[in-house]
């Protein structure tokens, strides 16, 4: 199949075929990153702008490396949402950027729907690099890529997602992606961090962490979103780490070959202990490496689409 969409705004809009197309493309791009000369001319002459309204060194760098390995020119723009009074700036910024004729704009924004708004204004392809608590599609795709790489399959997996589900765009995008496959998804975390209607997305809720990790093939830990007021949903970080922090003892209840994922950055000692984060089951660094490959695949597909 061929890619036909102008943008990558969310997993919600993707079909299973489109998800698999990205994952399969990422397979070949991963090889490039492991060569001595990590560069191909695929996107030579193309311009990729990263427009970040929220600081994120990790995701921005990953996109930038992906673009550079494909020989695209990259420009970073960091905008400050606190300075954009009433939000006219996003529209104005979009119009300004569009007049520079970029091929792709990667946007991160603290408000859901901002990439959708951007995509309506510009002709360039828009990639959502995280919009508030809504979606983080490239993260979910790299998570699926990592699961498939480590488990040779996605179908049949028991996946447990632990933490602030309500405010997590990573959880949302992963759920949207995983429900295309025959998986069992369990969400766990304090009841204040689990939205009342989450089960309508086809997931199970298990507040008890010990039961939630039982027989898990994949345990995905989420960060407490301090910047989204995450702290006000729990009495204290200390109490949270006691009840929901992932510790070595939890792994004994999971499948023997369980993998531990985390979208980063981690609050070590809070949602995950050092022992687990750095232990043999952790694939957290693989996720980072795969992030570049998946983003290369997406840039390639978006810029190569037939007009």
């Amino acid at each position, binding site marked *: 199949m061929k890619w036909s969409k102008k943008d990558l705004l969310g997993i919600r809009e993707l079909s299973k075929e489109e998800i698999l197309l990205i994952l399969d493309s990422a397979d070949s791009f991963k090889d490039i990153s492991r060569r001595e000369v990590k560069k191909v001319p695929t996107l030579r002459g193309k311009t990729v702008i990263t427009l970040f309204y929220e600081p994120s060194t990790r995701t921005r760098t990953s996109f930038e490396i992906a673009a550079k390995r494909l020989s695209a020119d990259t420009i970073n723009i960091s905008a400050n949402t606190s300075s954009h009074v009433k939000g006219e700036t996003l529209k104005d910024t979009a119009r300004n950027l569009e007049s520079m004729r970029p091929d792709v704009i990667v946007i991160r924004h603290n408000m*859901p729907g901002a990439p959708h708004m951007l995509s309506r204004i510009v002709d360039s392809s828009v990639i959502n690099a995280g*919009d*508030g608590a*809504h979606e983080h599609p490239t993260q979910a795709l790299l998570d699926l890529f990592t699961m498939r790489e480590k488990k040779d399959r996605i179908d049949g997996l028991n996946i447990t997602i632990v933490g602030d589900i309500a405010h997590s765009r990573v959880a949302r995008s992963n759920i949207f992606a995983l429900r295309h496959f025959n998986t069992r998804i369990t969400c766990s975390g304090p009841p204040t961090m689990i939205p009342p209607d989450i089960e309508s997305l086809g997931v199970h809720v298990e507040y008890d962490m010990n039961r939630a990790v039982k027989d898990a093939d994949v345990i995905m830990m989420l960060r407490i979103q301090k910047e989204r007021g995450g702290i006000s949903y729990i009495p204290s970080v200390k109490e949270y780490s006691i009840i929901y922090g992932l510790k070595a003892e939890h792994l004994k209840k999971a499948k023997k070959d369980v993998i531990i994922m985390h979208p980063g950055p981690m609050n070590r000692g809070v949602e995950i202990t050092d022992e687990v984060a750095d232990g043999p089951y952790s694939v957290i660094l693989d996720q980072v490496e795969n992030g570049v490959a998946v983003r290369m695949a997406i840039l390639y597909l978006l810029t190569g689409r037939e007009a």
Partner: protein
Amino acid sequence: MKILIKKGRVIDPKNGRDEILDIFINGGIIEKIDKNIREKVDNVHVIDASGLIVAPGLIDMHVHLREPGYEYKESIRTGTMAAVKGGFTSVVCMANTDPVNDNKSVTEFIIKQAKVEGVCRVFPCGAITRNLKGEELAEIGEMYAAGIVAISDDGKSVKNSETLRKALEYAKLFHIPVISHCEDEDLSKGFVHEGKASVMSGLDAVPAIAEEIIVKRDMAIAQYVNSPLHLTHISSGGSVDAIGEMKRRYNQITCDTCPHYFTLTDKATLSFDTNTKVNPPLRSKEDVDAMKEGLRNETIDIIATDHAPHDVTSKDVEFNIATSGISGLETAFGLSLALVHEGVLSMKTLLKKFTENPAKLLKLPHGELTPGSPADIIIFNPDLEWTVDRNTFASKGKNTPFHGWNLKGKNLLTIVDGKIVYRDPAFK
């Protein structure tokens, strides 16, 4: 001016009328309603209404005309032009202008401006509290003397229960309703309904109980002090249940809902279209069904628009920071006629919620076709299909989620005080 409306199907819920009749209007008054009126006088403008419905002009008890202070969003002129186009001959304008309508000078300004600029009747609603702050009572008596027909802090609830109690007690002096916007502000720090759609969009959400809790509190206070209370723009099924239950025990409760609450679900917000952002938010399918049932079983007395026009820059931003509201006057009747086409309401019952019921609540001498009463009349075609085009709105507010929708039923002619103030191009 003398007008003779011939052969229309006259439906007037107040007088229990539904038959083919002629209406003769003279000097702003309905002079005669009868079969086959033959006036021999000269200078009579004859309107052939055969095949059409003739009804009392609609009354919208909840609009925002934005003047004074926000004329760039709407003015009394443009708001009333939108009203008559939509079939409304009377509107009640809310107090959240700048300055707030919390004293008689603002009330007088609105009334004076409406006389000069308005094309339909405008009845101001005064604030309950000074500057809508929820603290001290506004000068309700002076505003009443100047012409307000109700009081409301619409835009927010009166947070302090003691203040609301005083307002309900004090308003008894003037026999005017207290109109309550029901929203627990601590529970409503969000932009959309809390439900499946918000789980998908990640937008900060407001649970239905944020409305229901205040509905119940306000009704409890009203019952305790034995005052009338009107609950406006009700959106949740839980509220309808609570109101229905209270109405069986206490007969001074009334409520309204708006067309968008029985037409759209929260699914519409998944587009991140800021025109779907309203307060209270669009709710679930179950709530929409409950609105229809509430309208059918008469728990919901009135349909109002909550016409909330906004300028483009207030809406052309990210969902979180967009202002709430729909420019509703020009689509309300068309959307509501769907209730008749779907078989939810009879035509007479629908019209009752737009005419007799609001007139009764506000004690207005309108909303009826009675000889001797003011000639506020509309003529509409319930079956005419048309497409909503916001670019043709008379309102300055082009903020509608219904742009491009096909509606069935349209107002064609509006008469206010015996004068034709709107004639649709589709009316030959």
